[in-house]
């Protein structure tokens, strides 16, 4: 028995040793040009923050069900309707060796809640508008004040934008080390420091990110010694890099490349529909599109399943409403907001007296995978119901132009709630309305209020259903599909993206990666 124990111990020590010496290289289609979790909400950036930064409240990422877990806060409770008190984890260290204090936490939260730096102000307004600020109670306790009762406390304190960064270090980066200046945040984005299991040991913007295991991490130690992320812009080169041994995992593999990977005995792929919609937006205020029936027809004419089959080999997901499984209790697949019905489209066009005038569809050629092909197919589908479409190809964002008729866009899930997807883009006074292509009225605003601030899930669901009815009656958008995104890796690597993350997160924390 003793011998068995001893040999087991030896084997596990050997295995642990093997895991501890692991180093991998990731070939990424895009590498961030700056690293600041507060400022960033891009799909490129979201890949890189989770390994190096922590939030106060964590989440079980293995499931789309909402399960909050202690992270830099060990517990939290509501003191009253608008105040949450959080107990901080003791003994947490930043990558620069400094101990994390309540001051750092208050600083990190207020850099967003009371933002004065324009790039933060933008993010603060679209998601943290309800937070007044954070204050220190004692060395291990802080309080967050909301302006009004907040149903999404945990969701919002789990966001990448409120990951915790060191106050003194940040202030020391530029100008006066005792003062906080905008340039401190600018400098931070090139020399990021957090509390996560990997520290950023080298960063060449747009080219290379090197993570090394942070020995003083408060939680389970990182499984990898070192991870090097390298920019590899060409898909074929990324796949070849797996063959030459220059990469162990590569990102952004298009569906048409999967066959090549499946046939190759040295590599494998993992893919899933991304928590993001490619959408078609329609300008409610364009003179030719003012009649809602015309926009309904433009939407009803599009066979999204056919687009999925032809462009995504059936691997994308076509939604019946602006909803995703990731929304947890707010996932509402029973809503039938969007459908394909060319006959009805023809009728509506006739009723509305569509005069056959040209309807332009703006698209950027390379920005969205399959974007241009989808647009071309949509032109054919429109033609079948008698709509004369024309494609305008250009890189420029035209969503704010009064001449805009129709264009493609995306609605990412910035966080796992309809507020983090539909809500960011289509709130009253939000981006779509302020750009003049989407109108809301008192009834919409009232439904929005209920959806955003009700403490009761059923009330929120009912209000969201009401919003979707409004979208159906007077459409300004059509979600086309959730695109399919895949990663490829050597056969010896076991890694997958996790369903509880926002899109594209490269999670290499303990339990996320192993080797054969």
């Amino acid at each position, binding site marked *: 028995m003793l011998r068995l124990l001893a040999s087991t111990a030896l084997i596990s020590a050997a295995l642990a040793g093997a895991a501890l010496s692991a180093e991998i290289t990731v070939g990424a289609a895009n590498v961030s040009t*700056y690293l600041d979790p507060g400022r960033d909400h891009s799909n490129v950036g979201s890949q890189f923050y989770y390994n190096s930064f922590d939030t106060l409240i964590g989440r079980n990422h293995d499931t789309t069900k909402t399960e909050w877990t202690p992270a830099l806060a060990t517990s939290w409770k509501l003191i009253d309707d608008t105040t949450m008190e959080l107990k901080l984890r003791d003994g947490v260290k930043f990558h620069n060796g400094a101990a994390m204090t309540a001051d750092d936490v208050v600083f990190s939260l207020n850099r967003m809640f009371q933002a004065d730096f324009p790039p933060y102000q933008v993010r603060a307004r679209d998601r943290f508008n309800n937070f007044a600020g954070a204050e220190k109670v004692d060395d291990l306790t802080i309080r967050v004040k909301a302006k009004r009762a907040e149903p999404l406390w945990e969701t919002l304190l789990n966001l990448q934008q409120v990951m915790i960064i060191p106050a003194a270090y940040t202030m020391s980066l530029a100008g006066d080390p005792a003062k906080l200046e905008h340039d401190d945040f600018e400098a931070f984005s090139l020399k990021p420091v957090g509390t996560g299991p990997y520290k950023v040991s080298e960063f060449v913007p747009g080219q290379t990110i090197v993570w090394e295991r942070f020995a003083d991490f408060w939680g389970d130690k990182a499984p990898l010694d070192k991870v090097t992320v390298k920019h590899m*812009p060409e898909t074929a080169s990324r796949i*070849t890099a797996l063959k030459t041994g220059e990469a162990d995992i590569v990102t952004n593999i298009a569906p048409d490349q999967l066959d090549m990977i499946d046939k190759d005995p040295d590599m494998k792929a993992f893919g899933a529909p991304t928590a993001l919609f490619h959408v078609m937006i329609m300008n409610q205020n364009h003179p030719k599109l003012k009649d809602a029936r015309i926009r309904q027809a433009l939407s009803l004419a599009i066979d999204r399943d056919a687009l999925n089959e032809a462009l995504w080999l059936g691997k994308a997901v076509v939604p019946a409403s602006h909803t995703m499984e990731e929304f947890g209790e707010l996932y509402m697949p029973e809503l039938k907001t969007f459908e394909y019905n060319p006959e009805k489209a023809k009728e509506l066009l006739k009723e509305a007296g569509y005069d056959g005038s040209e309807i332009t569809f703006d698209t950027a050629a390379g920005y969205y995978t399959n974007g241009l092909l989808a647009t071309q197919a949509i032109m054919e589908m429109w033609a079948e119901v008698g709509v004369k479409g024309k494609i305008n190809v250009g890189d*420029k*964002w035209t969503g704010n132009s009064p001449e805009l008729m129709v264009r493609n866009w995306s609605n990412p899930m910035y966080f796992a709630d309809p507020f983090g997807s539909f809500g960011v883009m289509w709130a009253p006074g939000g981006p779509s309305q*302020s*750009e003049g292509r989407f109108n809301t009225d008192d009834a919409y605003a009232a439904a929005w209020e209920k959806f955003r601030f009700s403490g009761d899930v059923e009330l929120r669901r009912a209000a969201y259903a009401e919003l979707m009815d409004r979208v159906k009656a007077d459409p300004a958008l059509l979600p086309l599909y959730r695109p399919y995104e895949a990663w490829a890796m050597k056969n010896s690597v076991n890694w997958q993206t996790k369903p509880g993350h926002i899109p594209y997160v490269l999670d290499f924390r303990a339990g996320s990666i192993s080797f054969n």
Partner: protein
Amino acid sequence: MLAYTLRTLAKMVITLFAIVTLVFFATRLSGNPIDFVLGEGITKEDRELLIAYYGLDGSVWTQYLRYLAAFVDGQFGLSFLERRPVADVVAERLWPTAQLILSATAFTLLVSIPLGILAALKRKSWVGSAVMTVAFLGLAVPNFVLATLLVLVFAYLLNWLPIVGNGTPAHFILPTIALSGLLIAALTRFTRNAMLDVLSQDYMRTARAKGLKERRVILKHGLGNASITLLSVIGLQVAGLAAAGSVVIESIFAWPGIGQLLVRSAILRDYPVLQFGVLTVAIAVIVINAVIDIAYAYADPRIRLAKG
């Protein structure tokens, strides 16, 4: 001579000024970075806020004057995307591209000059025809096709050579060949034609009549004279490479060079990087041309004497 130098310098400054101005207006008239990358899904008010923060407010003229004033001070600005001085951004990318171009130029010369001479000397045999046929085909293959083919065969299938970045000498092999393909094809033809011109000259007959060995006749008198024509061709080709040729190759081989940087900056409207990057490339091209001019003068005593 002083007047000549001053005139050349003045021309250079005017050219560079024109380039900077052109890039400035061309990029600004086609949209700003807030519309491309920094401002996805934001309200109109927030867009204005970011435009002011990134110094993109005011009319194009105001911005231009602001830019020129900063330029005179030696302030070239921060990259919108990388949040650091553009000089740092561009400097980091310059050397890898220079390395690649030097390597490709050297390889081109080593291969195409002997081949061109061979094709000229053996123009009546199958050897000459074979060389010229291959060179002709080579001209028809774009370098991204050649690059993809090389990656497929030597990296994907045979697994002999690496393809990501510029880390080791082995990393230079495939991109160098890919970038040289077209140049070798072109320069082999030029070398052959230049040699054919020279071979029929009287001084060649004289050299042979003096009793010189054939090898010396070809290399000194033949190649020596042909090199005058060749130098101008090489100069132009190198300049062409620096400006455009390596962009695709850098992308395929994940080469951290300036070609990739300029493409990204153009697409995402990172004006400060684009302006400084184009300016740097323009200076490099002008300097290379000047060096070629001098080399030309040395190769051709007639020019040297005329200028002196």
